């Protein structure tokens, strides 16, 4: 996906978001909607300007012979972005957040750490276990015992 397309999608999303919020202002009193409406108009203008700027830049690049559409090969293997990995990681975070509410901190946190470490093959299983248990315990001690702050221990 080229930058122009990405920015174009972002501009459309910003405009739709602004339109939804504008509709919300229809039920507000004048004093309450004054500033939001001004900001909404500015957002719509800036979103359009953002797309125009990106389009102009890509046109300029094309005319200079460095077509943006040509997908550049990464310089080395460390520059390649793994989108599948991002999707799995974001999915794991979402599952972690929703399951911590049901199963509680002590069960889900070590599982999340071990799961991610194994998926990314970042450390050996024993190291993953030690880090998972050690970090889970450390956070518990820090938040509950030392700082007296709440953590989602269990919902049972």
């Amino acid at each position, binding site marked *: 996906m080229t*930058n122009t397309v*990405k*920015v174009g999608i*972002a501009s459309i999303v*910003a405009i739709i978001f602004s339109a939804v*919020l504008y509709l*919300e*202002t229809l039920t*507000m*009193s004048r*004093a*309450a909607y*004054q*500033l*939001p409406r001004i*900001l*909404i108009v*500015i*957002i719509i203008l*800036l*979103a359009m*300007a*953002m797309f125009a*700027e990106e389009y102009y830049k890509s046109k300029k690049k094309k005319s200079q012979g460095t077509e943006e559409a040509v997908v550049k090969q990464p310089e080395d*293997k*460390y*520059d*390649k*972005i*793994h*989108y599948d*990995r*991002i999707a799995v*990681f*974001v999915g794991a*975070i*979402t599952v*972690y*957040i929703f399951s*911590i*509410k049901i199963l509680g*901190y002590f069960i889900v*946190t070590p599982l*999340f*750490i071990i799961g*991610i*470490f194994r998926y*990314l093959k*970042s*450390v050996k299983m024993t190291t993953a276990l030690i*880090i998972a248990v050690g*970090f889970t315990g450390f*956070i518990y001690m820090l*938040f509950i015992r030392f*700082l*007296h*702050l*709440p*953590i*989602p221990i269990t919902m049972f």
Partner: protein
Amino acid sequence: MEYLMLGLNNVMTFMNLAAIVVGTALGLFVGAMPGLSATMAIAILLPLTFSLPTATGISMLASLYLGAMYGGSIAAILIRTPGTPAAAATVLDGYPMAQQGRAGKALGVSLFASLVGGVISSIALLTVAPVLGSVALKFGPVQLFAVAVLGITIIGSLSQGSTIKGLLSGVLGLLLALVGMDPVTGSARFTFGMINLYSGISFTVALIGLFSIPQAIRLIEKDQKVITQVNKFKDRMLPTMKEIKQIIVTVIRGSIIGIFTGIIPGTGGDTACWFSYNEAKRFSKNKANFGKGAIEGVAAAESANNAVVGGALIPTLTLGIPGSSATAVLMGSLMVHGIMPGPTLMTEYADVTYTLIWALLLANVALFFVGLLFTRLAVNVVKIPNHVLAPIIVILCVIGSFAINNSFFEVYLMLIFGLLGYLMDKIGMPTAPMVVGLILGFMLNMSLYQSLLIGRGSWMIFLQNPISAILLLVALFSVIQSTPLFGWIKKKIVASKI
């Protein structure tokens, strides 16, 4: 003077001094980890200060910021990867020094330059802030509205990359700050019937999400480079008197550059270190040595990035406009403790504000000793793989955002902001202006309402007042100067002169 002594008295308690030492040590270790920024470190560790007294919590975070600035140089010198963006210029001479077997010297020079830069900027903060603060105290709603507009336009237009994207991010932040109960009319705005949104979007949640989750995703999106070679250092860290004489002018120059760069909202340590490095090279008699292991190169970059801390706090504490994303997070920590940023910080909350300033000054001294003690230990942190850090960051974000209100709603909101921050990053839109928008939104809303009330509904009130008119003009100029229109006007003027 009374407040100055009060602040000094406050900071000299065991609890606060311990917080300063712990903060600098934590900052040093986090800063040493490649890929983790000082801003993220403050954002992620902010929840730890919830249960601490305000002065202690804020002292710890300010010390952490300072420690992270120095910590960034450890990875830069030893593995040629800056621990923080502010240490980017340190690589140029720090790494060659390490390869020549002078890693200890490079780190010692970095520590000394950080100490001098930090102390000079803290003194500047201690002297300039009260003066500016007393001027800002005379500001009414009309001027405060102009200050808020100026803050958002400057940080938007000076953000790296596109001004339009910076401004859009800032205005989105302003709009998000309006979610919840309107303090003027008492009616709900953009809550969509959700009871949790009536109290507004928690600023802390937004900044934890915006600064930490994108960082965690970035750490795993690429294959990790295995750090096999870390330059060892066995040589002495402390610079000799001869070396101090050699670098002192560069360090003072770098400190001044750092202070002024810090004052300008939107610019931070990453800009200051390059600016200072280039100036050091320009003034040097041995320009050829730069890039090959010149201690002046390390001194210039490190004095400037630590001096930024004090400089950036000047507009933050006097006007309520954060000078950098890290100071925006520091401001957020004040808000967590019920202190509203703005000109009243220097009077109404003078005890906390002056404690913070003194804490910053003392943190520089603490950093020097913590650095001498722990730098050798921090070398091990440099080797921690990015993929190991990513889930750890996520857990700290989740637990931290839950701790704010003992509620899962904040955790969901944090994740939404995190994903938004990552997507913004992918299209080159900076997140710092959005955070500043979230801070300034309340001030903008209240001052607009009050100003229009004073002006009987007329918007001309903002142009009738000279201070607000000038501030708004500067805001307009800051936007125009970064657009193609300015370049076109400049070209026309040059052409007409020829």
